[in-house]
């Protein structure tokens, strides 16, 4: 019984982190119908940047993390201006391919700038896991959970309550109509990419102590974030987090009970099952058209 609860807790811990990665993907999809395939690499870049500040330059952890987030914001700004803006309004495929170009360039630059070796990254809250009635809870995961809840609340407030958030949603519904109503597409696009790059940067920094810094360390997490977003219906912020939790828990049990060959198949299976049975995701109100 205790083992089972421990599995559940570990699963939830990972799951909320996947959900957090999914949030940034959903935000971009919600506002521009695009998928950002450079998200993992952009997040990792912020992780490396924070490492440079904290470990190499000796900045306090929190200040270094803020520095990493600031660099992520600048990165988001640059990516939007150089890769995304020029193809705004082009077929969706062009936009998505632009993110592949960004991924290719940034991955290459990360390797040139930071090298290929594995680097340990200090945790924000050093110390042993908490023991809650015999169930161990990692300190990093407590932080990730708090951050996720804060970001989820912040985004929900931004999109539902602020004028700018409503403009973003209008933009997603009908870019042309939104423009006619005086919503500047460039500003919306820029804001969305900066916000999602910062969220990505936060995930990159929070995951660095758990996975160690190495090339492509966010790739696997990124794919699980995608899975979380698909399970959540890709337009629902809360859905992404719930989708992440579901994936995390299933994964914890799969690693324990399924043959080792098959456990990594879980994200794929989950995506396929959701697309087959409930293509709108488990929580989405939006319509996905079948053909």
């Amino acid at each position, binding site marked *: 019984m205790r083992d089972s609860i421990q599995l559940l807790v570990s699963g939830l811990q990972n799951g909320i982190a996947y959900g957090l990665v999914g949030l940034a993907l959903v935000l971009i999809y919600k506002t521009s*119908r695009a*998928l950002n*395939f450079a998200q993992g690499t952009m997040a990792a870049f912020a992780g490396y940047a924070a490492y440079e500040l904290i470990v190499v330059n000796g900045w306090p952890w929190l200040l270094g993390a803020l520095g990493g987030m600031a660099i992520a914001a600048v990165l988001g700004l640059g990516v939007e201006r*150089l*890769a995304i803006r*020029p*193809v705004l309004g*082009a*077929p*969706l*495929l*062009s936009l*998505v*391919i*632009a993110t*592949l*170009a*960004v*991924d*290719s*360039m*940034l*991955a*290459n*630059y990360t*390797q*040139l700038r930071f090298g290929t070796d594995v680097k340990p990254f200090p945790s924000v809250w050093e110390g042993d896991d908490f023991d809650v009635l015999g169930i161990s809870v990692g300190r990093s995961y407590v932080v990730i959970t708090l951050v996720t809840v804060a970001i989820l609340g912040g985004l929900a407030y931004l999109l539902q309550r602020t004028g700018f958030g409503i403009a973003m949603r209008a933009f997603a519904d009908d870019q042309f109509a939104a423009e006619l109503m005086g919503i500047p597409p460039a500003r919306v696009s820029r804001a969305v990419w900066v916000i999602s790059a910062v969220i990505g940067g936060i995930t990159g920094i929070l995951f660095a102590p758990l996975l160690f810094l190495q090339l*492509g360390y966010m*790739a*696997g997490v990124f*794919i699980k974030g*995608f*899975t979380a977003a*698909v399970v959540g219906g890709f337009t629902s912020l809360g859905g992404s987090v719930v989708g992440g939790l579901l994936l995390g828990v299933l994964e914890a049990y799969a690693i324990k009970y399924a043959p*080792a*060959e*098959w456990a*990594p*198949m*879980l*994200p*794929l299976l989950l*995506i*396929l099952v959701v*697309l*087959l049975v409930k*293509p709108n995701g488990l929580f989405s109100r939006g319509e*996905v*058209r*079948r*053909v």
Partner: protein
Amino acid sequence: MSEALAPRTDRTLQQRGLDLARSPRIYGIVALLIAYSIVRTWSSYDQFVAASIGLYAIVGAGLVLLVGVSGQLSLGHAAFLAVGAYSATNISMETGWGLPGEIAVALVVSIAVGALVGLPSLRLSGLYLAVGTLALGFAGQQLLYNWEEVTGGGFGESVGDIQIGNRLYTLVDATFLLLGISFVLVSNLLRGRTGRALNAIRTAEPAARAVGIEVARRRVLAFSMSSALAGVGGVLYAHAVSRVTPETFNVDLSIFLVIMVIIGGQRSLLGALLGAAFVVGLPEQFRDLQDYDGLIYGAILLVLIQFSPDGLVGLGQKIVAVVRRRRSGVDDEEAMIEREVEAAMAALEESPDIVGEIAEREAVVVEGAGDVEVDEVEATAFTGSAGRLDLTLPGLPLRLTDVEVSYGGVRAVEGVSFTVAAGEVAGLIGPNGAGKTTLFNAITGLTKATGSIAFGDTDLTPLSVRRRVAAGLGRTFQNLSLHEGMTPIDHVLVGAHRHVRYNTFAEMVWWPTVARAEREAVAMALDLLELLGLTEVARERADLLPYDLQKRVDVARALASRPRILMLDEPAAGLPSDEADALIDRVLTLTRASGTSVMIIEHNVELVSRVCDQVRVLDAGLLIADARPAEILQDERVVEAYLGG
């Protein structure tokens, strides 16, 4: 049709950019043979480089079909390469089946894995395939590390010699053989109904569905074909590197493959070849740059998607066009007229009854060579006689009972019931936002509706769009929904998709029955275009034509689907009234001859009252009148709806 039309057929079926298919295929094959005889004499390292280009070009051919033509993205093609590579290691080391056995296993497994991922994701519109294949690529690589019996785990597996029967072959032999076969098969798919259907789906999906194209099935076909070709590429990859290890098959490789095709030119086989040569050849030529490959490819990609979506091929075409124009001083229009004359001469042998028209065209050429004005004037007049065309079918009664459409809380169409008799010309009028187009969408199945819709004895209510088209529904679009980059002939052939039938395997080898079906289809298309006065522009890009001609192309596409009821959505809008009259009269002559029903949405009340037998008026989703045109004009509610609102 005689062979006179044949060489023209090849040219006309062409999209811009499908280069190998544009130039006669035989040149491609000869070029390949020459390349083969040269490469054979190279050093073994250079042969390895050439074979690498060849194997990536094979993978690229599949991605042209998937990414460039069908507009779907795969980020998991590394998995199919892995399937091919490990098929090669296992079959070559453990059986005596040789290369054919390796290929067969690679094909079966890649297509099966492809179907597993493709079937659920391709039913949905959007880029779900990219997400599904991304997860496939990730999971696949983990499986390779873990499944040691088959893959040898992280240590990898060796591969045996390339053997067909009892003879040994070199890597270059096998690569050129498979490259030739793959390119021939794919180029045939590109010029046949498969390529046409995929292009149509990518450029205007609702229109493609409205002529009965099986969207999901065609996409799955494109994906299976591209998975299979990646599998074949994987077999060659194994023989090229001799030891296959899992770390090769990561997501980066999948992305790299897509980048390769887009750099080369995503809509042509030449593009696949150029892309492969570029990404394999560049690091060979400039070893210092190898560390920067990601930066270089990414930067090139960013520039290309903005300035030349057709990649290096598109860039080459632009340069060639500029150089040609400068050198010869002959502009495109003149060359076009010359081609027209050639084509007309060829057609003359077929149908002597267009002699007069050809004489006219020649006169145009003689008097005003290169004079665009004359050409356009010629194109806007309706010409020719309709005698030979027998496209439309006798109508059936269309019965709507309590049809309702709601979007969220808004009811766009409320409880509409009426019957359009067989052969009737029915008008549907009403103010903007009355729900007219929504009703069309409900009837054709593009929008979900409640209530019942019956056509003849068929209850359409439970049927898919495609089944409704098969039952006899054909329609045009208010926004035209033309297919970007395709010619009027292509549009007609897209419309005729259900009637130009042949087996996809026959299409791949361009079996004589396929060639004949295509020739006949093109002849039909030319007849129909002649009837609508589009002969002069039959081979130009439809989406760049003047608006009035674009409208005719939309109507031509609908007619080519051989409807029993033709549903025209604002056919006169945007046209001068004499032209609108001419277009409608031309279409109605055709439909009256066959007894086809017609339903017209129109704001031009004069036109409606002139041509319609019966008129229905919608206002705010409700049917407020159903009467003869003369009575409609007297109806107070109708006048109120139009003038009072």
